[in-house]
């Protein structure tokens, strides 16, 4: 399989990470934050967002582009968690049941999304964005209107005072940082949550393994040419559905890691920007719309979040306005994706 690379002078696989490193270093200089603080924060973001970013890889390899519908996976897990909290299933039983329920729901959702995407070949990315928005409003309908009115809820604490709808924030106190603190090593000022890093790496290894099984070979074949793989006798429709199911399930598990790391559960906003941030992180690591490797995801999380952490403080110090750093963050997140799209389609058209 011959992979199409950019021109030798301007190869975005290396240029994009370089730009991120340069800008991060510059912003870090202006931010005045200590190196160990930034390192701890970035490592924290790595274990928080790592699995979500990894969940994007397989759809890219399958030629389906960035899967912005990972928010649907995230919402499945949040739904499972909310059900557990609403019916007071606590402790280890609660979290295990939530995982099982969340995975089941994300398999179902992944199947639905896969079927939809099979009908819009070539326009998967825009469709996944719209699916994410649509499912978000269904999610809001269920929890803001349905809970407490149609669906009875045992746990009154999470319901708004008017009796209908879940509160904006639900405490996850009982789950907070439970696994993050396992095997926490401290070297000087640096804190290394070894167990969670291992978990992220296990997920990475799993994806690596999947891509090297027979199924993975089929995925790669579809990614390089749908027609050829159909001639070879691969059921492209079924493989594409499986790819999206896998991505959605990984996103659901990723969201669980994300939520337990934060410890507070913003019911209506926790999942909203995860798709954009994860996609931008993957691209920051040097991936493109057609080509993504595990190292792109792992490197990308570090690069992207370094910039994310230092830029508000840099904005504060440079312009005496922290909001400017915020704008810079959003610009980087959206701009990275826009840039990748423009560059990639240009290579395609040439």
């Amino acid at each position, binding site marked *: 399989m011959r992979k199409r690379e950019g021109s030798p002078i301007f190869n975005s696989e290396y240029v994009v990470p370089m730009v991120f490193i340069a800008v991060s270093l510059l912003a870090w200089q202006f931010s005045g934050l200590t190196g160990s603080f930034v390192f701890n924060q970035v490592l924290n973001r790595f274990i928080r967002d790592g699995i979500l970013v990894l969940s994007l890889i397989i759809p890219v390899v399958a030629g389906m*582009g960035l899967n912005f519908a990972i928010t649907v996976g995230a919402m499945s897990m949040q739904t499972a968690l909310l059900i557990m909290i609403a019916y007071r299933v606590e402790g280890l039983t609660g979290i295990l049941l939530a995982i099982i329920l969340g995975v089941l729901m994300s398999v179902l959702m992944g199947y639905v999304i896969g079927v*939809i995407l099979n*009908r*819009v*070949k*070539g*326009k998967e*990315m*825009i*469709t996944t*964005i*719209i*699916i994410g*928005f*649509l499912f*978000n*409003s*269904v999610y*809001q*309908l269920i929890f*803001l*209107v349905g809970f407490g*009115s149609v669906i009875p809820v045992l746990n009154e604490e999470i319901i708004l005072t*008017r009796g*209908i*709808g879940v509160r904006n924030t639900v405490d996850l106190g009982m789950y907070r940082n439970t696994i993050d603190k396992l095997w926490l090593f401290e070297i000087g000022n640096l804190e290394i949550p070894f167990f969670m890093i291992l978990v992220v790496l296990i997920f990475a290894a799993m994806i690596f393994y999947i891509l090297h099984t027979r199924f993975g070979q089929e995925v790669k074949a579809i990614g390089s040419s749908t027609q050829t793989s159909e001639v070879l006798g691969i059921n492209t429709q079924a493989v594409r559905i499986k790819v999206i199911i896998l991505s959605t399930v990984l996103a659901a598990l990723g969201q669980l890691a994300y939520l337990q790391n934060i410890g507070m559960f913003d019911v209506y906003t926790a999942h909203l920007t995860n798709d954009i941030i994860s996609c931008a992180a993957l691209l920051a690591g040097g991936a493109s719309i057609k080509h993504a490797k595990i190292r792109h995801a792992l490197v990308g999380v570090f690069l992207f979040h370094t910039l994310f952490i230092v830029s508000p403080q840099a904005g504060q110090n440079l*312009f005496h*306005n922290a*909001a*400017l750093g915020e*704008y*810079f*963050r*959003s*610009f980087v997140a*959206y*701009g990275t*994706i*826009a840039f990748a*799209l*423009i560059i990639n*389609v*240009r290579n395609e*058209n040439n």
Partner: protein
Amino acid sequence: MSHYKLKLPQIIISLFLLLLVVIASALRMDLTALLNQSIVKLVMNGVLVLSLIPMLNVGAGMNFGLPVGIIGGLLGMCLAVNFRMTGFYGFCMALLFSLVFCMLLGWIYGLILNRVKGREEIAGIFIGFSFIPLMNYFWTLVPFKNREMLYPIGGQGLRPRISLENYFNHVLDDLGVITVSGIEIPCGLLAFYALVCVFLYLFFLTKAGRAAIAVGENESFARLSGINIAQTRLIAIIISTVIAGFGICVYAQSYGFIQLYDEPLSMAFPAIAAILIGGSTGKKTFIFEAVLGAYLLQSIYLLTVPIANAILVPELTEILRTMITYGIILYALLIRERRGASQ
């Protein structure tokens, strides 16, 4: 396709609208007042919907990059307010400034979109999304002098909502209003809307306009006929951007505020949903479809507010709106690709 056919989504939407009207009258709401508001809402949002037509017809897809044009319009209005231009004169100057900014922005936007031919929609979303935080820098740092636009404390940076009370609030809405048995007909507003429609209609009769339709229908055939594809697309995209800028000016004068910062972020989706409800399939679109769609969608938006309030869950309005908006866009994506495949 010379005559108009009703399609499934329109029937569903119309029935839903009818249901809402029945509920509204059962709740003893003032239907005449609602009708009056619906006419204003049509024009308020309708110009933005019309702005999608040139890009659809040239084959550049649904303009998810609508924020680009909207920002051009916002720039124009901010400039007019900064120079304290008031009344009808102020509004016309805002339009004039918008025209200049939108032509420039549309030209750049068009050049980018010409590079991503076939992927305009996804690229447009992210061009729009990334342009907004970039402009947030501008709004924060621009050295405008009119105190009514700036943050009251500190005196630097534009407010997120600039009141048009002393400038050109409702200049079109209140222009030549005729009242016939309780129904208010805002002639000035409707005349402006009609003017944009006529302009679009005439544009598609000119040589450039006919070339645009030819490119949209069959690009390779158009190329063989000697049409300059890139230039034709550029013209259509610039016109779309300019009308989008005018659209936000009309919207703001009706709404009473200029909304800056992240406000344009999600404005593209309702406009696209409206044109799709009108019967467009994301390809060649008639002006009539844009008008019908805008009216249907805006009437639904209008009616859901009092009804949701009456049943005590105010958030329901917003949820229903977004569900309809994204649902219809998803439906259109599915339908269009199936037709594309069968051709």
